[in-house]
């Protein structure tokens, strides 16, 4: 696909390549899901399916090895959908269209590679591959304080990856066996003393990408400055790398440490959930509102992962999916609205529902999903998470859970206020009255996202079963 992009000369061709490429991606992802489910149903066991491995660096026993389980399948689907819709939302991306999509593709390669990697080195490499295009994507095509945000985002995430790198090296050398393969490392036992150190390092490293409080500050600035498609991919998928990495590496490989010191991170994420929601209330910029709401939701993902039981972790994965779709929908809509009104401040807009009903209705649907309306994906995910975390009998976990559920109420406050202010009410600016509603390519993107949100919301069972069975391995590891 990248090669095809290099060949494509003009804008039309670039768009053609992107559309075919991303459609193929979605088809492949769906095919993967179907075949994964049928294979599992046919009795294929083992933690990962479709594994392939190739010796890469002999001296360190590094393999290029890949494989998927239910969680990675779900994540891959999510990424494919968002790349697909992202292409449609950046239909009018100018200038340097070709370069934009090249970096966009590189970013997606990093993301896909990360989710299928089963080798620590490969995983880390793809993680960094996914980070660096962000700098240029935000820096060149962004808006607002783009240079500042681009630099801040890149440096904070790279800084986190520094800790991650040391953590990975630590796991590698202290496990005693020279392998970087996650599936083999699981069978070994890392000394508990060292687990404490390396659990902290890796969890912190991935956590920053998952907007772990108080290291989330890159996220609002970055999302606000990034162009629409990049915000979508970044909030929708890239932040999920953090959550995915946290449990695939930190918790899966070092269960004892996870049991003993998860409380530190639980408190942090608990604060993050509530803090993100509160911050969202008094933002007036649409993108900032959504960015802070992402912080809150992503902290909830980490929170659920740290609860270390099957129900909560299933909820975490569901939340990753649902938040990914939801936030992508939001960013897409904000981008479309901004493209018309040239403002993102809710104080300067009003009555948009009358002018662009399609976008307005979609926005309301997204908002309702975000505050957890039954029937949409947000409800399923948050319900599962709080159910799971309340399973813990002790006071500490229960108090934290109750505190976090507050965020649902706060979310409702800011979503409803935002929607009320700029969609309903009188038209603030008469220039807006002449604006048009969504055009076909925008509709494709929005409808796809809403369809998946509703699908998860109304028929979550198949999906959560798939995730649940894949998690049993992690949980067995935790019970050891």
């Amino acid at each position, binding site marked *: 696909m990248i090669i095809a992009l290099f060949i494509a000369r003009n804008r039309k061709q670039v768009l053609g390549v992107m559309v075919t490429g991303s459609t193929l991606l979605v088809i492949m992802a769906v095919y993967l899901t179907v075949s994964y489910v049928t294979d599992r149903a046919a009795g294929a066991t083992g933690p990962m399916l479709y594994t392939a491995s190739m010796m890469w660096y002999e001296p360190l026993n590094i393999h290029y090895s890949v494989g998927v389980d239910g969680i990675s399948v779900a994540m891959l689907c999510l990424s494919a959908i968002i790349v697909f819709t992202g292409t449609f939302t950046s239909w009018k991306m100018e200038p340097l269209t070709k370069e934009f999509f090249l970096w966009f593709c590189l970013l997606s390669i990093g993301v896909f590679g990360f989710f299928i990697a089963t080798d620590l080195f490969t995983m880390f490499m793809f993680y960094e591959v996914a980070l660096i295009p962000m700098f240029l994507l935000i820096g060149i095509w962004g808006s607002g304080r783009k240079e500042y945000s681009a630099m801040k985002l890149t440096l904070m995430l790279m*800084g986190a990856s520094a800790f991650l790198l040391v953590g990975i090296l630590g796991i*590698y050398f202290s496990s005693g066996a020279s392998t970087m393969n996650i599936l083999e490392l699981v069978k070994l036992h890392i000394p508990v003393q060292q687990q404490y150190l390396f659990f902290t390092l890796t969890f912190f490293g991935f956590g920053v990408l998952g907007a772990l409080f108080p290291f989330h500050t890159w996220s609002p600035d970055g999302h606000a400055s990034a162009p629409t498609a990049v915000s979508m991919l970044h909030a929708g998928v890239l932040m999920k790398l953090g959550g995915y990495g946290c449990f695939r590496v930190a918790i899966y490989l070092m269960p004892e440490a996870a049991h003993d010191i998860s409380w530190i991170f639980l408190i942090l994420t608990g604060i993050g959930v509530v803090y993100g929601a509160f911050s969202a209330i008094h933002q007036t910029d649409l993108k900032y509102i959504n960015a802070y709401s992402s912080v809150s939701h992503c902290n909830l993902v980490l929170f659920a992962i740290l609860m270390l039981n099957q129900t909560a972790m299933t909820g975490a994965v569901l939340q990753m999916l649902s938040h990914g779709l939801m936030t992508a929908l939001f960013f897409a809509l904000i981008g479309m609205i901004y493209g018309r009104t040239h403002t993102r401040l809710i104080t300067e807009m009003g009555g948009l529902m009358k002018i662009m009903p399609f976008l307005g209705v979609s926005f309301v649907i997204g908002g309702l999903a975000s505050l957890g309306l039954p029937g949409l994906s947000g409800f399923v995910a948050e319900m599962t998470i709080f159910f799971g975390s309340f399973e813990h009998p002790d006071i500490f976990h229960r108090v934290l859970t109750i505190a976090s559920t507050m965020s649902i109420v706060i979310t409702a406050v800011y979503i409803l206020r935002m929607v009320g202010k700029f969609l309903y009410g009188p038209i603030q600016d008469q220039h807006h009255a002449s604006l048009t509603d969504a055009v076909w390519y925008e509709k494709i993107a929005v409808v796809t996202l809403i369809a998946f949100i509703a699908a998860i919301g109304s028929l979550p069972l198949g999906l959560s079963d798939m995730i649940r069975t894949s998690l049993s391995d992690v949980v067995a590891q935790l019970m050891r």
Partner: protein
Amino acid sequence: MNYSDFLYMRNELSLLIVILFLLVYDLIAGKKGMKYFQPVAIIAFAIHTVLNILPYPAGEAFGGMYLNTPMMTVVKSILNIGTLIVLLQAKNVFDMENQRNRRGEYYFLTLTTLLGMYYMISSGNFLMFYIGLEMASIPMATLAALDKEDNKSAEAGAKYILSAAFSSGIMLFGISYIYGTTGTMYFMDLPSLISANALQIMAFVFFIVGLFFKISLVPFHLWTADVYEGSPTSVTAYLSVISKGSAVFVLTVMLYKVFGNLIDQWQGILYGIIIVSITIANLFAIRQKNIKRFLAFSSISQAGYLVLATISGTAYGMTTLVYYVLVYIFSNLAAFGVISAIETRTRKLNISDYNGLYSTNPKLSFVMMLAMFSLGGIPPFAGFFSKFFIFSAAAQQGFYVLVLIAVINTIISLYYYLLVVRAMFIEKSDNPIPALKTDAYNRISLVICTTGIMVVGILSFIMEKIGTYSFGM
């Protein structure tokens, strides 16, 4: 004495032939002949590179004065490739009207320093080592001062020769103590005679400080920025990769083979030096406006990473070091190639002059970006792999804190590398550098570098091959 011993020196001999050939050519060729001087020189050196690219078996000549191991030939080949790239980039500089009369000296002196480095690498005796070192550093001072009309160049030459002489003096003092306490200068006899007594440790410290001068590690780096800025760009490029790479390799060989008994002492020294070098150089690099000074500080911090590969004391550490040098050559020379192309056409050297470069020179800025990413250690470019491996070599020996400090420093370095990328891609300029056409030679060099940056990391056999020749303690 056996004349076939000379065959162990075939690398040196073929280089010597090239040098003498060029010297004679320079003397007898008239105005017309000199037109072809540069292509001939480059082709001659390329032939030399190709002939010596394969490692050949170990051996020693002249009673242990001269040693050769496959690893050393690998390093020499890497230096050859680097020098070839430098020469390709120098072509357009010495095509200019006011530089034309110096091309003979440039090639002759550059290759002489390379010959000195060969002997330094292959030495089996402190005297031999010292001769090689001087042979490498005295012509280097002349090279730094090559641009006679430029005050800065003269200043650079003077600074280099003074600091080189000073460091050589200190080093000789150390060597004399080593001789005094052990009674021998041969590397193969020394390890058993060195025990960690106070006098020997002092001698060792003096000796190693002299080498640190050459590698320009903090706090012995004060000459670096001025010399790099003042020298002609093609000389700076040579100085920053070839000279540095060979010195670090020699340092490693010395530490492993000769001072193996002092491992506790030198690991302690290196530990401190690495942290200080990487951190201070990074902090200074952030504030630089001139791109050559900027790369000078970046190269000091890269030298810190090179020494980080040494600290483990294992064969694996040695492998990562040589691999790092290879990658560093490609990345840094890609940057210098772009700088040189721009400097010869426009005389612009400030980072702010690069604003908006992408709109006028997309290819040059693309190469520069790759170079910056590779230097900063971003995958999937080679710099990421080389950095990862040196970190793993150090972590293997339990230097976790050191690795953490070094990795955090890569983030700082990433910041200033990104500043250059930002200038080229994001900043707008009212007066950007006009679109320029580089000559074929420079383009070849940039293609080699770009390929190197893209491919060396992914092709694992390169590193594994190097690994088969390395040795540790």
